[in-house]
């Protein structure tokens, strides 16, 4: 049995452009289908149609075609922000909310609640309040609340976009359980790196048209379509893609173990210890945190005696699971929080006593959710906001150049909130260009970005550092962290575990194991093959393999 999407075309109003153009595909029963595509490709509109939001709630558009399912077929959605979806104070209240609406007996409700608690292995959460759950746990409860209604199709919209590695692991487990139970699931996400093992079938959308509809392996074989769709793929697949472009007859590999075997056939495995990189030249320390401790009013110790140094013109990433103190720490750097103990020095001078706005002239923090920042009437005004707020003179041509370079010029008169999530995020980061800040802190900058936007983000970071600015980045995207960073600071439960160059830290497996964060495949493979230095991105790894072949 399958559910058929039959030639669907849609536009939101009669005078707007088509968002979906003659879209047809099948969702196979018991399989996990991934719908991928760049920002603005029509994924969200498709979810609205599949879930019945269009035309039940939104009936002003023009809709053609059909989604061929029987009337009794139940389709439910797990949104990317469970806090907006869960109704109920406690976990049991939230899980039972949907089934209570179905008017079934109390006994049946109890049975369904028990079923999903067991299926997802979250019995231990049942007496907790939703507000106290971690991101991953909240997402799992959200999935449970929807599953309790026994949907025929479960749609998950970017379910791990704001989760830490522990949260992602939990959702991976949940998805595997669903797959084993025969649940038909649709994942709408442009990042397949976290779910490549689980997905069976991939549907690619660009500009509202289906450009790919086949099984996962065929998708991973089709390099052109991966790039065109801007999908983040597992780094192992990326390595295979780049290597196979340069080495003829390379056998396929999509996992670390397969990569070890196949690359090993080419270059063999060298034994011996990995030499530690020569000491990197130290730059001027622009920002220093000395013995920062923070205890909140309720007694919670968020930071315990954290020392950290940030060098001029370097990229420093902060790693740790949710609750490790990353955001609390950076809020001390820009003065949003005052330490219970310790000091922050910028260019040797304490920042104590200055307002956050005053500190922002030197140290600027860009928040995780762009909606917390956007309020101007046009994209151009938003871009120049920081400069105007700080009283910094700027050149209009320079501002327009920035918009042009990052493909936002056509939107310069648009209302910023109408941009896609990734573009909004990009805009808030770009607004820092015209400020005077020497230190720029980005909290989860890749949120909502497809691969194309992530590439632009990398370019922005390079431009900042080339101007001598120091970048401090909080991110859960570990391959990206290793690719762009010079140094890494690791926090765990408010304590600093390490701060060092990424090459040195790449050899500290014990630290990464203790915080349950996996090293990127290129690092693992570099160490496995005994490379003279740890590669931190796919290109340098592939080059190293090629050099060895020569």
């Amino acid at each position: 049995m399958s559910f058929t999407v039959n030639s669907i075309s849609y536009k939101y109003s009669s005078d707007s452009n088509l968002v979906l153009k003659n879209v047809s595909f099948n969702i196979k029963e018991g399989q996990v289908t991934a719908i991928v595509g760049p920002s603005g490709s029509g994924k969200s509109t498709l979810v609205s149609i599949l879930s019945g939001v269009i035309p039940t709630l939104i009936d002003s558009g023009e809709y053609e075609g059909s989604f061929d399912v029987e009337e009794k077929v139940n389709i439910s959605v797990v949104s990317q922000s469970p806090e907006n979806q869960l109704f109920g104070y406690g976990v049991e209240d939230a899980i039972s909310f949907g089934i209570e609406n179905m008017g079934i007996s109390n006994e049946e409700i109890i049975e369904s609640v028990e079923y999903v608690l067991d299926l997802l292995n979250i019995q231990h959460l049942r007496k907790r309040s939703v507000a106290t759950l971690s991101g991953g746990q909240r997402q799992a409860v959200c999935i449970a609340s929807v599953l309790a209604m026994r949907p025929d199709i479960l749609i998950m919209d970017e379910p791990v976009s704001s989760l830490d590695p522990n949260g992602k692991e939990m959702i991976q487990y949940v998805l595997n359980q669903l797959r084993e139970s025969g649940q038909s699931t649709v994942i709408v996400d442009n990042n397949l790196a976290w779910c490549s093992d689980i997905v069976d079938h991939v549907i690619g959308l660009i500009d509202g048209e289906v450009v790919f509809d086949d099984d996962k392996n065929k998708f991973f074989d089709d390099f052109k379509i991966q790039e065109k769709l801007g999908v983040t793929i597992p780094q192992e697949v990326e390595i295979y893609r780049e290597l196979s472009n340069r080495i003829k007859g390379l056998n396929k590999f999509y996992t670390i173990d397969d990569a070890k075997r196949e690359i090993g056939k080419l270059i063999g495995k060298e034994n011996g210890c990995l030499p530690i990189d020569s000491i990197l030249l130290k730059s001027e320390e622009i920002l220093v945190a000395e013995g920062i401790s923070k205890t909140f009013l309720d007694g919670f110790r968020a930071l315990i005696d954290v020392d950290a140094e940030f060098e001029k013109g370097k990229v420093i990433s902060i790693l740790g699971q949710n609750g490790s103190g990353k955001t609390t720490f950076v809020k001390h750097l820009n003065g949003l929080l005052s330490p219970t103990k310790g000091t922050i020095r910028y260019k040797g001078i304490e920042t104590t006593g200055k307002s956050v706005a005053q500190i922002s002239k030197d140290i600027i923090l860009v928040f995780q959710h762009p909606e917390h920042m956007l309020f101007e009437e046009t994209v151009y005004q938003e871009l120049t906001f920081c400069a105007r707020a700080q009283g910094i003179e700027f050149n209009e041509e320079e501002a327009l150049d920035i918009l042009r370079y990052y493909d936002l010029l056509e939107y310069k008169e648009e209302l910023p909130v109408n941009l896609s999530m990734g573009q909004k995020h990009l805009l808030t980061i770009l607004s820092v260009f015209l400020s005077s800040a020497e230190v720029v802190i980005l909290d989860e900058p890749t949120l909502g970005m497809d691969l194309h936007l992530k590439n632009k983000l990398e370019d922005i970071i390079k431009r900042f550092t080339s101007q001598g600015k120091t970048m401090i980045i909080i991110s859960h995207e570990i391959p990206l962290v290793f690719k762009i960073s010079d140094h890494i600071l690791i926090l765990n439960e408010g304590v600093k575990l390490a701060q060092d160059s990424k090459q040195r830290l790449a050899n500290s497996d014990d630290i990464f194991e203790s915080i349950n964060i996996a090293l990127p495949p290129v690092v693992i493979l570099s160490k496995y093959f005994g490379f003279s230095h740890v590669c931190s991105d796919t290109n340098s790894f592939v080059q190293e393999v090629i050099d060895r072949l020569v």
Partner: protein
Amino acid sequence: MGDFLQYVEMDSFLHKLDPRTKFSFFIVMSVLTSFCKSGVALLFLFVVFTAIWIISHIGKYMIELLKKVKVLLLFIFLLWLILGAFMVNDGPTIYRTTYTLLGNGYTLSLDWFDLYKGAVFAMRVFLMISVFYTVILSTNFSQIILGLRSWRVPYAVAFGIGLVFQIIPIIIQEFSTIIEAQSSRGLEVDKCSAISKIKNYIIISMPLLFRVLGKGHSISLAMHYYKLDFKTKRTSYKMIKASYLDAIFVSVTVISTVFTVVLQLKYYIPL
């Protein structure tokens, strides 16, 4: 205290009560404090409330409430004091003077009774607020909905009330995050004149509006995903039932009400 004016998860006597018992307490005490104008009766009610707060270990939250509303209470006290000063009362006087304005003679008389009157009105307002807070602090929004439904309140109304209590803390948190985000980009909200501060807070209201609209949209989508239809008869996972604790609490409420009424009748001084 980040959890001000919100439900606080505890295992107290009040938390264990049936929400209907607490709603009844709220209604009875609200009516009582609205009609009761005797200082002695109000003082008695205050003692009863204090005992309930202490037994339930929520005294620190009430002190926090008192700190937050102290300006309002002081304003009410001073207002009645000033209004009272233009009336001459019987009884001991603190300060009295006469003056002439536009050929007319007036007396300004600050009496001990004016102080009493100010204190009575401030006390009434505090008791009204605190009885509401006592219920909110010990009843989560799911229990509120459950309690209201068992009183045959239409589900749409009960759900709406519960939703308000679910969303208010989220909006407060959003507002605080937006202030942080904007000040981090250079918007001065601390060290600036009052006019600039007002202007900058208006700027902050824009993203807040977008966020609230966005939340509203997400909630309506979620209601659709969960097939919420107010026309369909809804069943329930949890049941509520009263226990001996409710019986004790209802008894205390009834006895306190009777005592307060007696004290009101016996010691009421017309204000």
